[in-house]
């Protein structure tokens, strides 16, 4: 199979995966007994208001017809209207998605910047105190819950030191004083593009704690991966030969060893994107980050099924694409892997 054919094949497969997910979530959400019409009308509705809502939401139709109706709207890019917020789900998801994505990217950036050097150093100085510290750090990152880290960071940096903000994406007053012209929805990027430095600084400050919390898991994962691969590579004959030739250690570690050790780590980086997407759901609640996670949590709690479906579609799509990209990179890096 050629590379291009492979991509098309995977994309077609992805569409089926997403349709499958939508079908399952749609029918499961209808099996759970609830009354979306009651949620739609609010606190103390009259029976007439509920009946009217039922008609408006097509709830009197057979479930299969409702599903067909949903798929038809989906084909037209319409994700329906949230029963709880009465907003088009697509509009709700748009801002939530960019908020989450900004957070995930920042977390992955932190993870890579910390984990790769730490992994390399741990391997090079195997069994030293740095290595021991690195290992403890990595295991804690993987095993301790994110909400715990989040709260500890809030206590230290907000409550005791008072140098970083507690929650949210940007300070209300800063945003009022220096209104941000939103272009992409990524506050850091938008504030740079429009040269709005106060908002950039404030958004960056707000991003540090949640991103660090979210980065703990991938840091652990990547550090461990890089360390073990580096140890393996450093025992290879060609590295010993390089030492014998008296090449500088920097060249040996970073050019010869890391080059070979990083390929599997790269896959871990890719997969950790998927992990952080799930991790973000919890971190967003702790830091009041207006992203997909917070949106999904409240949608699920209130049985707002169009919103739940919307989040599911976005998450499933992101998962499928991240996996696809990881696979493609793997193929590019290692031609032995067959398409």
């Amino acid at each position, binding site marked *: 199979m050629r590379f291009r054919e492979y991509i098309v094949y995977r994309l077609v497969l992805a569409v089926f995966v997403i349709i499958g997910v939508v079908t399952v979530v749609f029918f499961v959400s209808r099996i759970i*007994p*609830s*009354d979306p019409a*009651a949620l739609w*009308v*609010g606190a*103390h509705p009259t*029976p*007439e*208001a509920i009946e*009217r809502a039922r008609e408006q939401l097509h709830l009197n139709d057979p479930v299969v017809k409702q599903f067909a109706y949903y798929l038809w709207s989906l084909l037209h890019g319409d994700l329906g209207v949230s029963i*709880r*917020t*009465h*907003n*088009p789900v*697509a*509009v709700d*998801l*748009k*801002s*939530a*998605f*960019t908020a989450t*994505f900004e957070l995930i990217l920042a977390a992955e*950036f932190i993870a890579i910047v910390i984990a790769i050097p730490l992994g390399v150093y741990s391997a090079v100085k195997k069994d030293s105190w740095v290595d021991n510290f690195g290992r403890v750090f990595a295991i804690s990152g993987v095993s301790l819950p994110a909400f715990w880290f989040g709260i500890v960071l*809030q206590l230290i940096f*907000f409550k005791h030191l008072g140098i970083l*903000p*507690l*929650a*949210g994406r940007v300070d*209300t*007053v800063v945003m*009022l*004083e220096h*209104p941000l*012209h*939103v272009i*992409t*929805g*990524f506050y850091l990027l938008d504030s740079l593009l429009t040269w709005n430095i106060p908002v950039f600084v404030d958004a960056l400050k707000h991003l540090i704690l949640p991103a660090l919390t979210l980065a703990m898991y991938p840091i652990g994962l990547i550090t461990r991966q890089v360390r073990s691969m580096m140890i393996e590579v450093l025992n290879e004959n060609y590295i010993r030969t390089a030492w014998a030739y008296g090449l500088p250690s920097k060249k040996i570690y970073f050019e010869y060893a890391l*080059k070979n050790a*990083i*390929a599997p780590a*790269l896959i871990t*980086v*890719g997969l950790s994107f998927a992990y952080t997407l799930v991790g973000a759901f919890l971190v967003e*609640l*702790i830091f*009041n980050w*207006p992203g997909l996670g917070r949106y999904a949590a*409240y949608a699920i709690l209130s*049985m707002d099924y169009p919103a739940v479906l919307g989040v599911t579609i*976005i998450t499933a*799509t992101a998962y499928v694409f991240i996996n696809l*990209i990881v696979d493609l*990179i793997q193929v*590019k*890096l290692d031609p032995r892997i067959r398409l």
Partner: protein
Amino acid sequence: MKKELALFMLVITVMGVVASGCLSGQESTSTSTASGESSTSEKTTNVVIYGYGSEMITLDPSTEFSNSIVVLANVYECLVKYTPNGLEPWLATSWESNENGTIWTFHLREGVKFHTGNTMTAEDVKWSIERTLRMGLGPAFIWDPIEKMEVVNDYTIKFYLKYPANLPLIASSAYGAYIMDSKYLSTIGDDNAIADWLNQGQDAGTGPYTIVKDKYDPKTEIVLEKFSDYWGGWSNDQFDIAVIKIVPDASLREQMVTSGEIQITRDLPLDDLPKLQENPNVKVDQTASYQELYAFFNTKKEPLNNKLVRQALSYAVPYKDIVDYVLHGYGEVAKGPIPKGMLGHFEDLNMYTYDIDKAKQLLAQAGYPNGGFKLVLTYTQGDQAEAKVAEIIKAEWKKLGVEVEIRPMNWEQQWALAKSDPSKAQDVLMMYWWPTYPTPYDFLFNMFHCEEEINFNLCYYCNGEFDKAIDEAATLEGINQDKAAQLYRKAEEILMEDAPAIFFYNPDDVYVYHKSIAGFKDNPGYPQVVFFYDLHKA
């Protein structure tokens, strides 16, 4: 290899940006335009922020029946304002009725400007109420008594009613009684087009604040800006900008208010309130609310169709302990179905008190000397207070030999179950009630009046004598409050005797505000609303 890594990061970033752009063709909700910038950038040090737990829903005053009144009550105004001390003029300066309360005349305040610049007249009042009635959604039923409206002149409007009703009280409703700019809104299109326009974060009210459209994000924050031409005028220490910031996590709100990041909030964990009361940075405001927690007995199913059993179970509830343990004292034991502070509340009503011996005696009299039956109790999942109350009554009823199976359910689910078929529904259902506007009729009619199709009478109670008393009381409320109160009392006595429900407690409204602000006054008639106009710098 480094190139590949960089490429990978780039692809992911681009994918995110593209996807965010593709998700919706519609305008971003949080963008701000040049006009938004100029209107707010100069006066921002003067900001008050209300940390609120739920997202906003819609902004249409005709249909909104949920949280968004925290915005609407600052942006729009009613004809009359409800206060615990009685009704006060708002957009109407005075009102009177004929002898039997079927024709009401309201005299409007002159020189009131809408945010659009138009002047408010009686036409706007007529149009606003007609639109609410026409749409027939949410709280529209409050205007049911109206037969027709007549604009006498620009500042006088007459209401002709189908039956006597307390129209000034209805006109003070927190839901569905706000006056909108008819001249401006009618140019937009039909009712749905107007609703869409409003829900985008725009308003056409007369209130002291107006929504900053480009900053309206119902999930994150709603920015309100002072309306300079407000008829009430402004003083220097009031706030130019008021923000409602959505922070669902209560402990986060607590940290924010103690650090001054937000200035006022509510619904904090009750366990933390004593600690907050000692914190010099904040003040705690505690006022009785118009909310009450009930448990409805399924009167259509054995053994709860037996009045004696219901009475026995009502005696086996440690009311005082529940208030102490669940509310930590932030509330009071309910005295009947109507909360304290409202018409129809009687401190000396013959209430059930905790008496386990009497309970056993009644149960024996009913033919269940050692209990021996099992009840299914449902409550709203996630409500910690309801969960605790459920546990307490389970333990107490066990002393009578009554087993209780507790089922936490999502509210819509438990309501659907209760409405389905009484013979298969839960035996006991726990629920809060609060009024659309503060009348005892809203409580007694919705929960205990005979119903052909079950809506909120979730104990399936039906008593002609009770119905007659409350129906008559409702018609007298506007013209003869003493007589109305007497009838309500009679109805409540019937209810206490029949015991279709347990009346647990009235929780307090507890607001915590930062020391930097002052002037806050809770108004239980407008639940959860902070009137920013009352606030000023401390």
